[in-house]
């Protein structure tokens, strides 16, 4: 069966990057005026030439987002189950070569964490682990889903990419959404950042959304880790990937995230810095390119940035997050994957959302419906 990789193999990183940087203000104006925007329009919107049009992009982004999603923001929270990892990732606190204490939550510990998360009001949880197929595998996930399903309306997962058969096994257990970030579409740099472990297989990772589509997953999340490579080119390939997936797996919903590299213990300096103006440009470009895709922002970003981004195009937001297994109740001092930037509580974030004229929505799905 064909996959995105077949299309991706026909693309050249350097040529794509050059075509983005060659876009002119005329290209941007054409993209802004269009009713439906193409991938070429997206290139213009993320290009340096679009920088002077940021306010115009923001206005359109806000209008399109309001039309489709209304004045609401979906709330979600991560639950880190494990920091075990058999991969080396140069930018991640869970990297195999980072000699720290490892922990995988037991069923009892998971329920202690769940109790705190429920107390915060959450109905949507994102399960996160490192990438370790020995300790944290499909059978572990089945047990976790079985355990927590009665407590949540929507369960997402951000774990190691798995085989099609694994995804097919997990959906009946109540798995609604899978997030899988490509990290970078730059093949050579991908290899440099992932020198060891299963994750070093670029093709397996880039084909993961295809396997999720074939498994009939309800929703999938895509993105790159901003800071590893030229973000404009990486995000263009994300848009291209999304475009492909939407046409092929038309019954699946999609979300995008735009995590910027954050400090962690023993960390890597970002190769590429993306400033706040550029992140706003990217968020607006995604919205102008795709009116229906969900756009998500995490606690990696600063409080001030998150306060102001609410009205610009995003549709879901996390709050009160801990990025370490046991971080909510069991072992608050265990190793974090990365430092969060916005430490405000979910209630405080909900208040900020209300002040911006929006409503924080805690439940917008129900596992019992599918």
């Amino acid at each position: 069966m064909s996959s995105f990789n077949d299309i991706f193999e026909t693309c050249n990183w350097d040529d794509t990057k050059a075509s983005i940087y060659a876009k002119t203000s005329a290209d941007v104006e054409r993209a802004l005026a269009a009713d439906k925007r193409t991938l070429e329009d997206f290139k213009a919107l993320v290009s340096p030439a679009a920088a002077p049009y940021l306010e115009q992009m923001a206005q359109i982004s806000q209008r399109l987002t309001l039309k489709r999603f209304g004045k609401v923001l979906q709330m979600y929270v991560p639950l880190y189950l494990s920091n075990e990892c058999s991969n080396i990732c140069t930018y991640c606190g869970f990297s195999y070569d980072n000699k720290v204490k490892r922990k995988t939550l037991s069923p009892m510990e998971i329920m202690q964490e769940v109790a705190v998360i429920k107390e915060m009001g959450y109905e949507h949880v994102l399960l996160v682990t490192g990438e370790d197929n020995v300790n944290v595998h499909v059978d572990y996930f089945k047990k976790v889903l079985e355990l927590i399903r009665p407590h949540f309306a929507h369960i997402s997962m951000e774990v190691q990419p798995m085989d099609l058969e694994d995804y097919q096994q997990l959906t009946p257990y109540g798995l609604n959404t899978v997030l899988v970030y490509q990290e970078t579409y730059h093949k050579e740099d991908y290899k440099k950042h992932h020198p060891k472990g299963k994750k070093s297989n670029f093709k397996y990772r880039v084909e993961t959304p295809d396997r999720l589509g074939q498994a009939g997953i309800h929703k999938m999340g895509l993105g790159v880790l901003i800071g590893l490579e030229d973000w404009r080119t990486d995000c263009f390939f994300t848009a291209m990937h999304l475009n492909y997936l939407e046409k092929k797996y038309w019954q699946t919903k999609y979300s995008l995230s735009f995590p910027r590299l954050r400090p962690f213990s023993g960390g890597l300096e970002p190769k590429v810095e993306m400033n706040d103006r550029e992140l706003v440009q990217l968020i607006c470009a995604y919205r102008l390119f795709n009116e229906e895709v969900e756009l998500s922002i995490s606690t990696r970003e600063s409080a001030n940035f998150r306060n102001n981004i609410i009205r610009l195009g995003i549709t879901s937001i996390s709050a009160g997050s801990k990025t370490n297994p046991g971080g909510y109740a069991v072992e608050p001092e265990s190793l974090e994957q990365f430092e969060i930037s916005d430490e405000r509580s979910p209630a405080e974030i909900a208040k900020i959302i209300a002040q911006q004229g929006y409503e924080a929505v805690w439940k917008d799905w129900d596992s019992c419906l599918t």
Partner: protein
Amino acid sequence: MLTIADKTFQSRLFTGTGKFNSPSMMEEALLASGSELVTVALKRVDVKHNDNDDLLLRLKYPHINLLPNTSGVRNAKEAVFAAQLAREALETNWIKLEIHPDPKYLMPDPIETLKATEELAKMGFVVLPYIHADPVLCKRLEDAGTAAVMPLGSPIGSNKGLKTIDFLEIIISQSSVPVIVDAGIGAPSDAAKALEIGADAVLVNTAIAVSSNPVQMAEAFKLAVEAGRMAFEAKLAQPVSHAMASSPLTSFLDE
């Protein structure tokens, strides 16, 4: 007065509860709209502990009837299950059937909708299916026991108005059940137009919820729907392509 199944409605404006910036704003706008039938997405309410659900508490008025919808389900099987869940949780056998396997444009699946309608009608549900403006499907749904049909004016949430008007007119002309134009109505003038051409009611959500002043917009829709219905009842003057002389040439024949 409009009758659907066992209920009569003074207002021909039906409303939705999504996309408002707060439950209190939703409540205020829905009251201003005068709507007596309000659709609620099952996925948004706490079906297990619905006595404390903020959204539902805001809709507890004697004149407001709840219309749970199955938004999010992808086939007839899931829709039937959701309807049963709604009946148990919200104590109503009314269901707005929404089956859209396409999460991008939320286009309704006609085949699964027909299957679910047949099954739900047999189970005693009052079924109001959201469908494309397809005249043949509407007749098939009537045969299946639907209580009304809810064809779209244009894609859901698009505010593009009555793009399907030619097909809506056919549906209205041959329907034996109420026709409620659902989805795409972006302005009070769209709602007035739908009523003018003979639609029995309209369902509006986005246009009210995301406006700068939802309460005022709700009232504007209320008035537009009333005006549209009055115009329909008064019989609109038909447009003509040739001049009609005020002193006809053949009037001498009546003398």
